[in-house]
């Protein structure tokens, strides 16, 4: 195995493009190193991104959104007051990943690129309309986070492409987001179902909404029907029931050791309602 420490994303992309065998990018390493130790992955080239300047920074973009470096650990997101105030749902999703120790290393980008349908930080990014900046042999492009997952353990990134930052849009006024997951325990577990809701109010009425579901399909899924169920409503009981039904209808989960099809489907509707209420409250100014 060859271990590389490029000093720019262009170099990282070049190394990846030239690599012949199995390549892995290393940021926090909380997936890659564990998979290597367990014998699941034996990369020929391991490209460590942490030496690239700026990968540990959270910065305000010119548009008023956020640029989050690929090596920013979860703990740094949670400690960033301004980011947390604007995108509490994104931050709480990442905060659910792993233990305190893992939070010191694990990154949003790594959680996204691991390709798990149950990744806790991804539904919040998808619902927020986040994009990724991708550096590749052909230069730099951006793509919605929602387009990166391509099935369990897979991404849509091409050979030689590397995510160089995650970009959150400007929060704007009267917006709120939330992420909830279901696990049988209180921590240290993998989502049986996850749901993020991001919305914007006009008065008491939901003007815009995005609903994303995790662990109920091969990829984390944006559910426009669920968003439509609450747009134009005040999240009254009828709207919540419609949201519940739309979320359930979007599910195509599997039976496995972590949950059943029937359970995941039912709980997806429950979490959608609960997350929507929290997001609504936050849009109204709740700080919890």
């Amino acid at each position: 195995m060859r271990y590389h420490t490029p000093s720019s994303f262009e170099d990282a992309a070049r190394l990846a493009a030239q690599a012949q065998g199995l390549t892995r990018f290393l940021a926090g390493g909380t997936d890659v190193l564990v998979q290597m130790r367990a014998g699941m992955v034996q990369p020929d080239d391991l490209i460590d991104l942490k030496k690239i300047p700026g990968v540990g920074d959270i910065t305000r973009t010119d548009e008023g959104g956020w640029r989050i470096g690929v090596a920013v650990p979860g703990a740094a997101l949670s400690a960033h007051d301004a980011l947390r105030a604007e995108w509490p749902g994104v931050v709480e999703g990442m905060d659910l990943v792993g233990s305190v120790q893992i939070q010191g290393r694990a990154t949003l980008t790594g959680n996204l690129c691991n390709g798990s349908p149950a990744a806790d930080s991804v539904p919040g990014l998808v619902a927020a309309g986040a994009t990724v900046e991708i550096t590749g042999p052909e230069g730099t492009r951006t793509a919605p986070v929602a387009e990166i997952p391509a099935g369990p353990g897979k991404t849509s990134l091409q050979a030689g492409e590397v995510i160089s930052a995650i970009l959150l849009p400007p929060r704007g006024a009267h917006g709120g987001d939330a992420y909830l997951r279901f696990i049988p325990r209180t921590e240290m577990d993998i989502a049986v179902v996850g749901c993020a809701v991001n919305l914007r109010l006009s008065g008491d009425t939901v003007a815009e909404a995005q609903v994303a579901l995790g662990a109920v399909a091969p990829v984390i899924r944006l559910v426009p029907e669920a968003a439509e169920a609450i747009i134009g409503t005040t999240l009254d009981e009828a709207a919540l029931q419609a949201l519940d039904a739309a979320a359930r209808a979007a599910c195509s989960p599997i039976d496995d050791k972590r949950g059943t099809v029937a359970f995941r489907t039912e709980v997806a509707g429950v979490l959608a309602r609960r997350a929507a209420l929290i997001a609504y409250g936050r849009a109204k100014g709740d700080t919890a």
Partner: protein
Amino acid sequence: MAKDEFKEFRLVGTRPDRPDGLDKVTGRARYGADISAPGMLWGAVVRSPHAHARIVSIDTSRAEALEGVKAVVTRADFPTGLTGEDWDLQENTMAGERALYDGHAVAAVAATSKLRAEEAARLIDVTYEVLPHVIDVDDAIKPDAPVIREGAADATVPEGMPPNVVRYMEFGHGNVEAGFAEADLVREGHYKTEATHQGYIEPHACLGQLGGDGKGEMWVCTQGQWFIRKMCAGVLGLDAAQLRVTPSEIGGGFGGKTTIFMEPLSLALSRKAGGKPVKIVMTRSEVLRATGPTASASMDVRIGMKKDGTLTAARAEFRMQGGAFPGSPVDMALYCAFAPYKLDHVAHVGYDVLANRPKCAAYRAPGSPMGAFAVESLIDEMCRELGLDPMEVRLKNAVREGDRASYGPKFASIGLVETLEATRAHPNLAEPLGPNQGRGVASGYWFNHNGETSVSLAISEDGTAQVSIGTPDIGGSRASIALMTAETLGIPYEDVRVNVVETGALGVNEPTHGSRATFASGKAAVLAAGQAITEMCRRAAAEWGIEPEAVEWVDGAAQPAGPNAGKFPPMSIAEIAGKMGETGGPISGHHESVPEGVGASFGCHVVDVEVDPETGRVTILRYLVVQDAGRAIHPAYVEGQYQGGAAQGIGWALNEAYIYDDKGRLQNPVFLDYRVPVASDLPMIDTVIVEVPNPGHPYGVRGVGETGITPPLPAIANAIQDATGARLRALPMNPPAVLAALKAARGA
């Protein structure tokens, strides 16, 4: 010692720091995997990926050709002709003609590094012919189930039983049909529990060395070094005395480290590698797939109750699979099932059944939690139906000293009534409950155990004392034995060092199991200290020129027993010890026996839960453990045992389970998916130590390790019904199961 005698103790009942505490918090303590030796090799084990398969061939040539590989062993390297439990252990250590469960060892390799050994293991080519398999106990007992082993049934099994039934039992007293006829309400229930693992933090690890001369050494993480010695010697055909086994510190056992798994493999590899020591450390996946979880159970219980709550008769029929070998704890489950109740008419039937799962090992009160789940659930259901208070019904029917136990013998001194009364008086029972919240109560029982015990004590030249015990310290027993020894000798706690010693240093000791260490090693240490005291009094008497009988031992010194004995100032232990060389040589004490006077222990738990009606998620709001300790030598460790038992029981009740796919492969062999409770899942568990001293122990000890895992299973089921109206009769009561039960209850 009379039961009601109250005595003030100087040390017993205090809470000093544990002697092994500093080493453990600083990381200095040496656990199984911390032991290494010069020239050491690493072992790795090849395991069956099939639940049941004929081993057609094993080709080790590619592994043997790999640089750094020093030995490969298969079953062909083990002696033949073993019978009984020795054969079972050998077959479980290394598969013979067939692999009997997912994870069953089929070959092992030793190489110069861990990575090299793992690589070599991947190069061993095993050809399997996959056979039909069976996982569930009710499927395994069907007449047409795949047969795990022809001729495995023992003499207890009547003709015509299904082939996987290997042991059968019936016992009881009275006439249950007459008893049921006296009842106002007779109810029957069917209950199931899943297999669970002890979940100790430390995986199995050993370093074994065996030469061509049949002499060997082993350093190993175990609850019982003599069991390791006996079992390894049996499996490998060695003389037991030629194998010297030293236990490491132990990161949890709960019964699962009272037997052997990969230990004989390290010795067999070492012998084949010219006597180089071989270290084997299991991964968590190996621990879950291939060590000894507990049994799964299918149970039918029938109980008769009068309108006032009096029990008139009870019958239990339990079926348990303990893996591909005989030995499920169905007998223990039946013995414990009705133990808290005075019953004139009781009947028990049990089936020990084989299935394609790992060989079960002991797990904290083996069998008792399953039996309690069935019986305590049904009693709760009947109390609800009759509108009776479950605490009052338990008190009304509680066994007392002299009562005949449901499993036969008469109870000696027991503290069930005191335990139930202390429970009833606890403030948790007065806490108000909100919507979707409920309260459940259940009792539990464990016999406790004595076992072969050998302890030596030696007085040092400065008057301090060392105690050599053979029971590894899992739960603070070095502290409790040091307290009792110091109390007896009349010296400070800090002046006693308790060492857990290797097999060469003492007579045979059973493992730390059956909640016996503080009872049995503790009693032996006290008796050994008594011998040393007698000798020290004799030395003082000789110096004073009076009769030894005229000397008594008070506060760590010999003194004349009364004015007629003579006027001499007390002679301290340090003074006597300082001149032991001139007064007759070393001063020591020794005791070995199977100590009489075991004291059984009852407990009662009360749990408050909240159930999320939309997801079925159960949150433990409050949890109370009340249990009779006899006497708590070190109350902090007694409380720790109560809390630990409750925590494991809560995990068993709610989420833990062995999950198999349709090929019989274990789906959750990691802690991410084998869901033991995490710390934030549980509230601080409240404890009440009831003390009804055991007259069979010098300080009244009963043993506290096991009873605490028994009541949580039914207590939580009872609380869920209280909260929701839904009754769950199968474990685990995980969110999908609870949600389904809620929907069924709402539909009904």
